Structures are given as structure tokens and as C-alpha cells.
């Protein structure tokens, strides 16, 4: 600790007066303890979201001004510890070690205080410039915990501020505590952790770690990490230390193979000591509503049917509520398109056609999907915020084993049912690289709300009302089957290896919070809108151009028609005419575009399209088209996000190519079986 203090005071001297007004504050904490909620309260709209350099881990920075003091806040990734286990943990601790923030705020879930303090212990091993934000005091009370912040503060030697971030309670006191520590008017003196049995070996390791060659790290901390077998620190020591030192360290480690367990034990003993001073808990744990709900929800027989019922309800409600909304948007854009054509009638032909036939229907087509996606993500947000999603992961764990994955992977796959772009990004919650790639590769086979919308359009046009729901359910089932099949093949042929361990906290159930909900749905919808506003508008215009030029040519002779002619032979194999083949090609840009393209090619708006399609193609061909478009390729925006998340062209190419083969094969199967049966 002494080393830290001098480093801090040196920094004060060096930066002079600036130190008084600008504080660099890092927020650390376990996942799901309300860290982001607090960050949003502190920084409001003054935040910047990006990635940590070279990593696909979100980095949020923001600033706030309090009492003439500016705080630059960094939201560190949520972690349970500060080992080198995952990119998140590495980022969090590297930031504290290398950037040396003025204050580290550790947000603690008071209802899970004992385990959360494990991170507190590890942060205090790095720095004493810490403030503890004791969040979720309300939930702690539900569990019968009586927590005394003042006593806790005394036992810990570090400022402790109680908080209910969801209701923005206690924020003022937290800010005051941060400023006090940042301005050195309060100097935390943490109660040291007694490493007991490990003390002699830690001392020997400190000696063996020639500290002159490892500046910037405290020798105490390095010794701890070496004893824990930290891969990153091991790499570092191998780079800078000479052979004799390395040999000495190795022999010490061989004698103390239980290092990690002994250190963890010492930390929990320290935690126990502090909590005895600062809290009272009931002798027997209180039976909470969570216990009663979990009894049913995670039941070995009831769990799965209940989960299916929950998600069936989510899908049904989503499409039921969004249907009329989409209808209104559709009518609105059609009216706007007509009005634009009339208004521009005196002007040049191409301008009116570009706007009325190209841009407006293109954008309108996207907007009709907007309500579906918003509503789906609101429902998913409710499931997440109440705590049900963690149970869903638990129930699905067994089934996800078929894919060589564990329960958490289900959570990211669920997101893809709304939109594949946030779906791919949701793979970040998985710890292992292999799992992330596998989830990303099967992601394109999950029909997003838009593809389901296109399918529903065809099913509505070609199937009797009584058959529509069964056909849609069958399509969902088919895609699910393909996900399982692809996952099975990919993990055996392309991504062999062991399943990563499944361990996951099951939080207490709680009522959803509006702020969390809007955050959850908000950024996922934003991902969809971004692609709508850019890619889709551009592609709609491009398609229109290709169909309009060369000037005066009939549609089959336009560039688009010639393109269709070129790929027609491939489409014929599965019964598709050139128009449908072109629609699949343009659907690569965005699945919404398929319908708009068919509208252009059959020379109608979307309402006339039903009649035109019924005349031009048989129900069998329509079904082939639906099956193929459901699976055949991830849209351009998804491809882009797969590339940026996997950082690999190889995986991106695979994610594009194998679905084409799969969808083509399946299309051929449906077509030929259907024909043989006489359809």
C-alpha cells in the first residue's frame, strides 16, 4: 500500500492545479450489479461508446460536472475477479494498473455482498484509492440482510456509500465520497488481507521477482498473481527475468500447487471478518419469492414447457401487436409515394420514379419492420430485467449441449430472432473464443423478425387462413433444426474442442425497470435503424437504378433483368424464375429488399404483388422461395458485424457460404419432393 500512496502523491505534484478540477474515475463491479445504470445517471448523455483497443469489449466513457469538479468516468467491463481469465478481466485490471485512475468506484450488489466483496478484495490489492458503492440495498432488505454502511466503512477502511441506483438514490453522497478521495481529503487505509499460510511463499516470490525489471507493478501484487498462476503475468516475467529467477519461481510454485485456493481462502476469510462487523444476516436464509418462482421455473419437467410457452407468447404478442402498426406505416408510405409522384409529375420522369418507386418504398419497407423489432426487444428486455433470462439459460443448458455449447449461448441466439446484428454482438457474453465463433456462425440461420415478415407475406398470399399458423411454426422449427444440425457439424469439423464450463449466477427476481428496459431495447433497435438508414436506402436506390437503366429498355433488358438472366439457370434448379432469383440477390443487402424488388420486377406495389405472385408462381415455388430466403445468407449488415466481431475473414466467409449451400440444398429438396408429390 505504501508504494501506491507515494505514486499517488507524485502524480499530484506532477499534474499540479489540473488535479484539483479533473478527476479520472473508473467504475468496476461484477456483471449485473447496476454499474451501467449508475454510469448513465452520472454521465447522462455525455458519453462515448466504443470498443477497447483491439478488443470486442464495449468501452463506455463519459463526463460529469459536480461542484466545479469535472469527472471523467470510464465504465470498466463487469467482472467477478481480476485474473487474466477473460478479455474483460484483463481490460479492467490493466486499466487500474496502467492508467492509474484517481478513484476506482467498486459497485457492490448488497444482496450478494459476500461474493461481490471478492472483487473489492482484488481491487484493494491494486490500489487504495477506492470508494465502495453499496447498490441494491432494497434487495438486501428483502433477503433479511441488515447492512450498516458506517460499520462496514470502519472495518474496511474505505468509504462505503449505500445506493439504490435504479431509483437514483444516494448518488449525491457517492459523488461527495469520490471527490473526497480524488482530492486526497480522505485517504482510504484498507484493512490489509492476511494471507496466512501463503505469507512465506509470497515473501520468497517477491524476492525472486527482480522488481527493478518490472517497474510499474507493485511487488506485492506481482507475487500474488504469480502464485495464482496468472498467464499474463507469467508471460511478462518470462520476457524480462533471467533464467535463474524463473527457475526459482517455478520451484516455489511446484512446492505450493494450491496457491490459488489458499489465496482465495484468505480473501474470503478477510471478507468474513469485515462482514461480521458491518452486517447481520438471518440464521436461516429467508424463503423469498425467488425461491418459490424458481421451484416452478427451473423444475426438471416443467421448466422446458414453460420456457416454450413464454417464448411462444413473446412471438405471438410481438406479431399481434405490431401487425396493425406496420399496416399503418405501410399505408402511410404508399400514400406518400403516390403524392410524391403526383407532385413531381411536371418534373423529369426519372426524378419522380427515383423517389416514388425507389427511395420511398425502400425506406417504407424497412419502417414497416420497425414496430416488430421494437416490440420484440421490449419483451426480451422484460425477460432479461426480471431475471427470467438467466433461468432460460439454465433450462436450455442441456439442449445447448447438442451444439457443443452451454446455456448462456441460448441468450445470444434469442437476440438474433429480433435482428441478427445485435444477435452476433450478443455472443460477447460467452467467455471462450470458440463458443463465440460457433454462436456467430450459426447466427445467420436464425430467422430475424424481418425474414419472418417476408415469409409471413408469402404464407399469407399462398396458404389458406387455417394453414398459416402451422406453416409459420413449421418454418421456425425447420430453422431451429438447421441451427442444431449446423452447430453439430461445425463443432465436429471446424471447431473441435471441449465445451467451456457453465457457471452462472441466478439473480433475484425483480420488477422490470423502465430505465433498464429502454436501454436494453434502445441500443438493439438503434443497431437495426443504423443499417436501415444507410445500407438499405443505398441499395434500394441502386436496385431502382439497375432496373431503370439503360433508359428506355424494358425490364427484362434492363441491367437488373440481365443480371436475372445470368443467374436464372441456378434458380431454375429449384424452380425459381428470374425475378425471384434477383430478389434473393438483392435480399443480400437486406432481407426487406426482397419484397421491394419483387414489387419492382412484377411492376406493382406491394398490394398488387399478392395478385401478381399468385398468377405467376405456384404455391410450391412460393414455399421454396420462403425456405430459401429464410436460411440462405446473412444480410450485408450482419456480414459486416460478423467480420468486426470475429476479426477474421475466414469465419466471415464461412458464415456467408455454408448457409447458401444449405438453403440451396433444402430448396431443391422441397421443390423436387413437392413436384414428385404432384404439387
Amino acid at each position, binding site marked *: 500500500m505504501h508504494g501506491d500512496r507515494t505514486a499517488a502523491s507524485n502524480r499530484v505534484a506532477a499534474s499540479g492545479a489540473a488535479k484539483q478540477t479533473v478527476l479520472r474515475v473508473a467504475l468496476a463491479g461484477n456483471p449485473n450489479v447496476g454499474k451501467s445504470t449508475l454510469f448513465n445517471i452520472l454521465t447522462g448523455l455525455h458519453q462515448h461508446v466504443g470498443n477497447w483497443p483491439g478488443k470486442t469489449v464495449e468501452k463506455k466513457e463519459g463526463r460529469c460536472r459536480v461542484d466545479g469538479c469535472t469527472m471523467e468516468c470510464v465504465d470498466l467491463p463487469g467482472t*467477478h475477479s481480476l485474473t487474466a481469465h477473460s478479455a474483460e478481466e484483463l481490460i479492467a485490471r490493466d486499466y487500474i494498473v496502467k492508467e492509474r485512475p484517481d478513484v476506482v468506484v467498486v459497485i457492490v450488489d448488497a444482496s450478494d455482498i*459476500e461474493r461481490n466483496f471478492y472483487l473489492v478484495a482484488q481491487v484493494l490489492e491494486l490500489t487504495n484509492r477506492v470508494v465502495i458503492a453499496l447498490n441494491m440495498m432494497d434487495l438486501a432488505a428483502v433477503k433479511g440482510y441488515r447492512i450498516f454502511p458506517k460499520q462496514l466503512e470502519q472495518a474496511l477502511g474505505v468509504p462505503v456509500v449505500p445506493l439504490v441506483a435504479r431509483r437514483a438514490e444516494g448518488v449525491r453522497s457517492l459523488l461527495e465520497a469520490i471527490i473526497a478521495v480524488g482530492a486526497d481529503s480522505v485517504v482510504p487505509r484498507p484493512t490489509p488481507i492476511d494471507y496466512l499460510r501463503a505469507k512465506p511463499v509470497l515473501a520468497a516470490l517477491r524476492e525472486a521477482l527482480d522488481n527493478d525489471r518490472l517497474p510499474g507493478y507493485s511487488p506485492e501484487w506481482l507475487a500474488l498473481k504469480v502464485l495464482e498462476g496468472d498467464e499474463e503475468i507469467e508471460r511478462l516475467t518470462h520476457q524480462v527475468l533471467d533464467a535463474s529467477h524463473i527457475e526459482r519461481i517455478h520451484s516455489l510454485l511446484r512446492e505450493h500447487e494450491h496457491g490459488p485456493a489458499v489465496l482465495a481462502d484468505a480473501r474470503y476469510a478477510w471478507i468474513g471478518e469485515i462482514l461480521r462487523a458491518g452486517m447481520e444476516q438471518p440464521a436461516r436464509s429467508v424463503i423469498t419469492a425467488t425461491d418459490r418462482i424458481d421451484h416452478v421455473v427451473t423444475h426438471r419437467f416443467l421448466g422446458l414447457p414453460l420456457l416454450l410457452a413464454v417464448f411462444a407468447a413473446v412471438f405471438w404478442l410481438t406479431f399481434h401487436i405490431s401487425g396493425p402498426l406496420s399496416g399503418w406505416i405501410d399505408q402511410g408510405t404508399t400514400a406518400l409515394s403516390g403524392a410524391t409522384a403526383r407532385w413531381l409529375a411536371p418534373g423529369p420522369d426519372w426524378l419522380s420514379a427515383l423517389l416514388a418507386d425507389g427511395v420511398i418504398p425502400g425506406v417504407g419497407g424497412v419502417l414497416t419492420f420497425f414496430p416488430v423489432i421494437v416490440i420484440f426487444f421490449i419483451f426480451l428486455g422484460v425477460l432479461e430485467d426480471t431475471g427470467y433470462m*438467466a433461468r432460460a439459460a439454465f433450462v436450455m*443448458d442441456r439442449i445447448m449441449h447438442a451444439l457443443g455449447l452451454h446455456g448462456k449461448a441460448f441468450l445470444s441466439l434469442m437476440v438474433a430472432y429480433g435482428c441478427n446484428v445485435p444477435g452476433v454482438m450478443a455472443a460477447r457474453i460467452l467467455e471462450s473464443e470458440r463458443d463465440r465463433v460457433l454462436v456467430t456462425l450459426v447466427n445467420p440461420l436464425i430467422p430475424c423478425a424481418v425474414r419472418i415478415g417476408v415469409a409471413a407475406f408469402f404464407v399469407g398470399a399462398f396458404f389458406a387462413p387455417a394453414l398459416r399458423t402451422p406453416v409459420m411454426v413449421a418454418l421456425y422449427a425447420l430453422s431451429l433444426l438447421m441451427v442444431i444440425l449446423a452447430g453439430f457439424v461445425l463443432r465436429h469439423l471446424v471447431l473441435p474442442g471441449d465445451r467451456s464450463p457453465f457457471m452462472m449466477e441466478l439473480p433475484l427476481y425483480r420488477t422490470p425497470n423502465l430505465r433498464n428496459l429502454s436501454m436494453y431495447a434502445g441500443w438493439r433497435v438503434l443497431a437495426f435503424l443504423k443499417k436501415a438508414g444507410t445500407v438499405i436506402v443505398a441499395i434500394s436506390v441502386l436496385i431502382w437504378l439497375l432496373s431503370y437503366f439503360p433508359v428506355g429498355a424494358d425490364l427484362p433488358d434492363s441491367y437488373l433483368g440481365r443480371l436475372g438472366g445470368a443467374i436464372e439457370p441456378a434458380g431454375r434448379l429449384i424452380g425459381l424464375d428470374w425475378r425471384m432469383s434477383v430478389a434473393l440477390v438483392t435480399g443480400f443487402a437486406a432481407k426487406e429488399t426482397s419484397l421491394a424488388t419483387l414489387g419492382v420486377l412484377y411492376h406493382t406495389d406491394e398490394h398488387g404483388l399478392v395478385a401478381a405472385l399468385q398468377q405467376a408462381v405456384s404455391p410450391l415455388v412460393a414455399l421454396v422461395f420462403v425456405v430459401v430466403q429464410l436460411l440462405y445468407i446473412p444480410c450485408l449488415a450482419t456480414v459486416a458485424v460478423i467480420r468486426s466481431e470475429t476479426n477474421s475473414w475466414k469465419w466471415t466467409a464461412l458464415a456467408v457460404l455454408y448457409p447458401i449451400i444449405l438453403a440451396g440444398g433444402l430448396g431443391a429438396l422441397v421443390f423436387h419432393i413437392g413436384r414428385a408429390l404432384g404439387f
Partner: protein
Amino acid sequence: MVTPPAQTSLALLAAGQVAIVRSIQGGWGIVRRLAALGIVPGTPVTVLSNSPFGPMIVEVRGSRLALGRREATRIIVAPKAG
């Protein structure tokens, strides 16, 4: 007095049973990860739900934790009598 088996795997305990963690079979990686979630040798755990296959739920330090079957198998515990 019936003495319970001295040591067994956590995965073999039934719902409602209480046990003390004795050791964790596996590399340092899994030891560190379990430690971060509250499970170290000496920790009392209560089994909340367990079925012959699939993951299980345990209560550790006042919170509930879902553990994969294979992970639970690697946790060696001493069950408490009663």
C-alpha cells in the same frame, strides 16, 4: 448415528443437502473461476435443485449459482449429517 460418506462429488447430492467443499479437481483456471463465484475449499454449499442430468442450482454465500453437470462433478464435498 449414521455417518455420511466422508467425501463425494457435489453432483451426486440431492436437493436440500448441505455440504462443505473439500477440494476442486481440475487446473488452476477452474479453481480461480469457482473462487471468483464464491466456491473455495471450506465453503458451505446448499443444493437447491439437482436432477440426474443437466445443470444444478446451489446456494453459495447467500446467492444462487447454476453449475454445469461436469463442473459440479469436479467439486469434491463432505456432506453434512441431517
